[in-house]
């Protein structure tokens, strides 16, 4: 009896310690960001004093933050569209026509992992800066690269989605009943892949909201890079903004977790 009691205390002690490690930084950040008290005066005695979201509102009305947020939004939209255009047909054809190629394709789509932003930026700067300066001059030049780093998880999510709905059986059944190729794709396969596509899109949004190295070294103004610049001017507002971005990221990933679990597909996704 005492042994199991000791185990109980140990287990919960460990879990509470882990929970504290994860919660305390968020609380500290929230106090820095949302309490209208100079940081040096934040103590245990004024935990409930002067909470306000004025810092966040100021940050969100800053024109630089607004424009960089809208750029990040469009980068995410275009990166998602580009990845779908490239990978949805590829995943469908591979699953339906040549499933033997699947392991090879999975391995191939993993390659961007080996070349992280901090490494690829050197190659991009040396090649495209000389060959196509107009390309690197535009902020949207980030789109293909973000699509590249979103590729490993996008392909895996799409592929898992296709397998979960038994795409090959559906395809053969629909074709056997006389449906044309395009009917099969647009009226049978794609509607069934909606969950996988939304999950992949949300993961891409999280990636775009978090990527800093590549954008900052190419001197592009995205939300993460602008956030660091803004921190020099208004630390409190920048912290509020950072917390806000974290919450959006968490919501995106929450959608992914829900969608993927409901489909009975478990996928671990790692990025940078």
């Amino acid at each position, binding site marked *: 009896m005492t042994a199991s009691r000791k185990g109980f205390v140990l287990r919960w002690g460990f879990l509470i310690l882990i929970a504290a*490690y994860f919660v305390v930084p968020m609380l500290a950040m929230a106090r820095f960001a949302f309490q209208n008290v100079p940081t040096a005066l934040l103590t245990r005695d004024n935990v409930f004093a002067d909470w306000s979201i004025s810092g966040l509102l100021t940050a969100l009305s800053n024109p630089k933050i607004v424009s960089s947020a809208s750029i990040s939004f469009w980068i995410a939209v275009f990166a998602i569209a580009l990845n779908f255009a490239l990978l949805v047909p590829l995943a469908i054809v591979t699953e339906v026509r040549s499933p033997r190629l699947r392991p090879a394709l999975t391995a191939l789509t993993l390659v961007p992992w080996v070349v992280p932003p901090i490494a690829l930026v*050197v190659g991009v700067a040396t090649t495209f800066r000389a060959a196509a300066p107009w390309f690197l001059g535009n902020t949207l030049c980030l789109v293909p690269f973000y699509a590249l780093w979103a590729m490993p998880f996008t392909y895996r999510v799409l592929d898992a989605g296709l397998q979960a709905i038994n795409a090959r059986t559906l395809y053969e059944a629909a074709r056997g009943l006389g449906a044309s190729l395009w009917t099969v794709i647009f009226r049978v396969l794609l509607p069934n892949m909606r969950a996988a596509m939304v999950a992949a899109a949300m993961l891409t949004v999280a990636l775009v909201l978090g990527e800093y190295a590549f954008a900052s070294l190419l001197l592009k103004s995205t939300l993460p890079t602008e956030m660091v610049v803004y921190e020099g001017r208004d630390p409190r507002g920048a912290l509020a903004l950072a917390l806000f971005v974290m919450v959006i990221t968490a919501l995106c990933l929450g959608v992914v977790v829900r969608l993927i679990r409901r489909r009975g597909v478990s996928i671990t996704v790692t990025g940078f």
Partner: protein
Amino acid sequence: MRVLSRPESRLGILVSLPFAAFIGLFLIYPVTVVVIKALTPDGHLSADALSRALSGTYRRGFINSIELSLASAVLGGLIGVVLALVVATMSRPRWLHPALESWSAVASQLGGVPLAFAFIATIGTQGLVTRALAEMGLDLRDYGVTVTGFWGIVLVYLYFQIPLMFLVMTPAVQGLRQSWREAAAILGASPLRYWLSVGGPILAPSVLGGIILLFINSFTAYATVFVLNPGGALVPLQIRFLLQGNIITGEEDLGNAIVVWVIALLLLSLIIMTALQRRALKWIHS
């Protein structure tokens, strides 16, 4: 019977061509140019740049980066495994496991700039934890923990490393069958003996593979260390330095050479990780 008609037969080429062109232009082309330039620093073949990239301050950078990544991978890996094992034995609060899994999926992706800000507010010089401990007469700096120092950065990285390890390990831990433990107990094995001869060896490939994944994850992390300590001697920060100052001739080749070493290191890690994961899958699916 397969129903095939003409549009489908050309479909394979039609969908793989844009994909190949995309990968070729935005990944293979820049990487190939970097490799060629690193191998031919003065226009002809020489290992000069590659060896310079591993000497002096750059050697220091690689050593620091590898030490930092190893420390955060091993610590995060062990804590993550213990967390997965502890949670696997607890069935009582039914929400615990799904809640922890969702939280891990979220936290494993929270890195970069916001995380650095959060820890500055926590263990920075004005951080709430720093000041709360100071009131009790404890100075974090006496223990070598500052948010810009080695252990401070490890502490920050654990924020995404522990959840990532938990996610990777959960299927493996769930693959440990209750019947194996019972069988071992009936045959007279102590819990320690069970872990040494059954549980440990089965989990080992997953644990090692997970730790390598965490290693890759922290080796390439840039934003967090840049915000915390932009002048630190770590490989990603040195790449930034070389990239921004590449007007000096010869420095460009050095940057290329460092990137070649980074890609080689990551490729090797990925290959070992894949091999370990394949071994680990044997037990999860059987």
